[in-house]
């Protein structure tokens, strides 16, 4: 590396004044809202606010649906990541684009697409209803679907990246030792990418926990059935600002915990 390159990003680098000014503004922009939330938190009433029916039901629903969504994303997403990383097939680019779409698609649009597919008169939904009497929209199952739809790409890209990075000769050795492709997957491949797999699951879960747009569009906002924490925050904001703040604080605490637990991977520190 040249000297010029090496000095970039080091503590000793001399920053132009304008860079420092804008960097500070950026930090303030991100940090001040957090301060605002903490300052306005009605700490004394917090226990009461968090044990209200709205709060406990939303919290319970959020935990259940986000864990189920993370499970769905893992069970479907790991095989998808494996196929994308290890197989070559026509239409691969198209499939990858479809996988990544929910990352950039506004969640509310994701909710609309789910409605058109799984709604009572949707592409698939009409048959589910006519043949099995299954109605996904505006149900708790619909919440899980909406969350999984938005969260799965996080798991797929994390796991696919890890699968591309491991030396596939470990898998070849395992085959010569008598392991079937399935044994290789469970005893060699997945254990070797376990750190990335956990990171992918946690990211997917965190995304599912915070999901709002797709959920409210596809599953609605019914307390006890589809009203998850983010929806409860939105609903209570008009009624009780204090309760909205208390619920926001819960989500903030969860997000911070996730971030800290994954810091080795995503904050650029040494793993």
């Amino acid at each position, binding site marked *: 590396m040249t000297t010029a390159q090496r000095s970039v990003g080091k503590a000793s680098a001399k920053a132009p004044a304008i860079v420092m000014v804008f960097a500070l503004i950026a930090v303030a922009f991100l940090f001040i809202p957090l301060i605002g939330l903490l300052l306005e938190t009605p700490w004394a009433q917090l226990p009461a606010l968090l044990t209200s029916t709205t709060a406990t039901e939303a919290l319970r629903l959020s935990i259940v649906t986000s864990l189920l969504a993370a499970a769905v994303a893992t069970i479907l997403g790991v095989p998808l990541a494996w196929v994308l990383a290890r197989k070559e097939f026509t239409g691969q680019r198209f499939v990858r684009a479809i996988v990544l779409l929910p990352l950039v698609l506004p969640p509310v649009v994701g909710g609309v697409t789910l409605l058109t597919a799984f709604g009572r008169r949707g592409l698939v939904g009409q048959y589910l209803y006519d043949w099995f009497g299954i109605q996904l929209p505006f149900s708790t199952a619909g919440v899980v679907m909406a969350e999984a739809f938005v969260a799965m790409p996080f798991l797929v890209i994390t796991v696919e990246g890890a699968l591309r990075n491991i030396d596939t*000769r*470990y898998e070849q*050795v*395992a085959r*010569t*030792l*008598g392991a079937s492709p399935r044994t290789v997957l469970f*005893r060699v491949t997945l*254990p*070797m990418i376990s750190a990335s797999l956990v990171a992918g699951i946690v990211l997917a879960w965190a995304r599912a926990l915070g999901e709002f747009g797709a959920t409210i569009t596809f599953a609605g906002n019914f307390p006890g059935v589809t009203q998850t924490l983010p929806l409860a925050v939105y609903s209570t904001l008009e009624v009780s600002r204090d309760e909205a703040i208390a619920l926001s604080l819960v989500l903030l605490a969860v997000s911070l915990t996730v971030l800290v637990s994954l810091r080795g991977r995503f904050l650029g520190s040494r793993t």
Partner: protein
Amino acid sequence: MSVTARVVTHIGDFGIDAQIEARPGETVALLGPNGAGKSTVLKAIAGLVPIEDGCIRIDSTPVDEPASGTFIPPEHRRVGMVFQDYLLFPHMTVQQNIAFGRKSLKMPAGKFNDDDTWVHALDLTDLLDRKPEQISGGQAQRVALARALATNPRALLLDEPLAALDAATKQSVRGELRHFLQRFEHGSLLVTHDPLDALVLADRIVVLEDGRVTQVGPTAEVASQPRTDYLAALLGVTLHRGVAADGVIACESGGTLIASTSVTGDVITVIRPQAISLHTHKPEGSARNVWQTTVTTVEAHHDQMRVTLTGPPQLTAAVTPAAVAELGIAPGQQLWARLKATDITVHPA
């Protein structure tokens, strides 16, 4: 058991068509420059790469034969393979690594006890609870070997088994590996680009250049009579097996050599033909090996003349065409040969 293979395949524009065989108890080195297709041949035999034509048999059973549509997947071939950098599973202990194959094959994994001769023979008892990152390169090589052998494979494939080791470790591990291969009852195939590995470890050498076999023969024969330019540049050495004691080596084929070595017991000596000088009269000087001999053949190789000398010990000398003219070297002629003790490389066998 034996391995017989004719591997026909290609990687991009590069075509491979190679025939190779390892009989029971025999170690065959597949020697060739980088990119000659050696590793691909080995992977094909292991079942990791399908062949396009030809046939791979273990004993008389075809395991890959495109003509008849036979393809036995690697997990059912029971062929042990050791890769260049050993590839011990990093998330398992040494013991779990060794047990992996038995577990996969639903063989009784059991504990490692006296039945596990390889664990003992390879001196792994103290390493069983360690993780691969906690052991040395030489130890990792032994673990990889034990792991490959734990399933009682019907043949052993070694891909550059010493290339990942530093020079000092390489010497001792090479000796251990030779000792082990001599006792292995099935056929072994060893891929290497290092002529020394082939000379010390193999009973026979198959030379692979550009995807084609260019020479096959017993190790000593291939070493002393290289038929391609690549091999002549690489080898052209004379090998003698013998027994060493106090720096004196009694050659198996007769005669003695004096070498500067502290190794005792069974050895292989490697002598470069350039190290031997030829004289019409008994040479003066401090060289420890001076003897009178008769020329059997003289042939041109590159810009050098290779002169074979009757023993004992039988040797090949390489001299310049000018020296041949000056000394009038011709078959049947009596000459004095001289060789310094330090020019004899001695490897424990």
